[in-house]
């Protein structure tokens, strides 16, 4: 049976390229923008690009927050991409008045101004722990980043499995049980990106 992934489509962000990357890997992708569709999902991807406020507001305006949190609690395999990673934290300095999904408790902060921003282009990761998403991917592989905010690295944080550095060290890959997220764009990251998505599909299939 082919894996079907539900892509949360909240009207911003480049859902099409994620969808296309999944199709190339032989997976089915359906777009979802209602709570009911999220309730029925067997695997979820939250893509995102742009402003933290746009994503959080879109989730709340469409009443998706509760369904999403329930799905994550229920163990549905989840992959957040870029803003889809940042949304998992308590809050972001980009829009401090808004509450994130608060699954992880570091803060999302602005990258330091002593380097060029946005952090745009191909960078490498520092592996901090063994990772399901990064399995089979060369240690020196580059991934494509395009962001100015990032989750700060905290001490004793076993969920952060890889970091990246641009001015300061930040969370690049986070994994906690069924919840996975990456700060870069696997759908734009050539072969290593495709491998990462394939790894997520394998995780999703094993869970179903």
């Amino acid at each position, binding site marked *: 049976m082919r894996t079907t992934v539900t892509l949360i489509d909240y009207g911003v962000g480049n859902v*099409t390229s994620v969808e*296309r990357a999944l199709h190339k890997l032989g997976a089915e992708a359906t777009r979802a923008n209602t709570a009911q569709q999220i309730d029925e999902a067997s695997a979820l991807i939250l893509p995102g690009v*742009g402003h933290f406020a746009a994503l959080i507001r879109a989730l709340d305006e469409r009443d998706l927050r509760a369904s999403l949190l329930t799905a994550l609690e229920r163990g549905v395999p989840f992959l957040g991409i870029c803003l889809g990673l940042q949304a998992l934290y308590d809050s972001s300095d980009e829009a401090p008045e808004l509450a994130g999904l608060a699954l992880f408790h570091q803060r999302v902060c602005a990258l330091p101004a002593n380097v060029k921003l*946005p952090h745009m282009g191909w960078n490498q990761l520092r592996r901090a722990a063994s990772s399901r998403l990064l399995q089979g991917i060369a240690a020196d592989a580059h991934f494509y980043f395009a962001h*100015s905010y990032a989750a700060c690295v905290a001490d004793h944080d076993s969920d952060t499995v890889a970091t990246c550095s641009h001015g300061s060290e930040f969370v690049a890959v986070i994994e906690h049980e069924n919840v996975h997220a990456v700060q870069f764009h696997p759908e*734009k990251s050539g072969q290593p990106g495709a491998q990462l998505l394939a790894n997520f599909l394998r995780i999703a299939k094993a869970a179903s």
Partner: protein
Amino acid sequence: MSLAHRIIPCLDTDGARVVKGVNFVGLRDAGDPVALAARYNAEGADELVVLDIAASRDRRPTFLETIRRVAAELAIPLTAGGGIRTMEDARVVVRAGADKVTVNTAAVQRPELISELSREFGAQAVVLAIDAKRDDANHHWQVRIRGGHDATDLDAVEWAKRGVAAGAGEILLTSVDRDGTQRGFDVPLTAAIANAVNVPVIASGGAKLPEHFAEIFRDGNADAALAASIFHDNIQSIRDLKTFLAAESIEVRLSC
């Protein structure tokens, strides 16, 4: 471990086909954009830029179809532009599959366009394209519009700073003096802009030899370098170029 310098092939199109020629004179066909996109994606390009240099209203649907077909070939970011004058122009280009849009003439005429785009898509999706020409009489670089044709009274360094303050997340800087000459990138111009703004700068115009790329990264402080015909005509392979740069200890992405 640090951010890799990007090599970016550029497809100048008339909407449907890749064309070559300076200032719309003597345009000749240089290939199918979809086939070239697939080739560059496989050869290790870090990003692709597709421009509609004709930018005529009636050819717009054709250009959008080109973006869609090019985007379908890529596992790397895509930037599209040429003739983007309004928010709606940008929206359809993004919907067609572009990750970033470039604005040039329209931003000079109405700088608020940059802020509007940045608010809607985020700074990382807004590339301010600047065509600059040396003005020796006044010891500066002058901003040119309409494909480098028309003079303006803007200073390129000041305009870059204003554009970034308005919300541009990247500068695509073309030297009008070097464009098409294959004499190398404009190092002083690129360094002047790259040192004046805190966003990535893509250098364009004049590339031929691998040494030109090494020079623009090392001395011009460029974050990325763009070229067109040397890649289309197989004068320079992207893979060989990156191998050369890596041997020069310039950080690049070798595997793809």
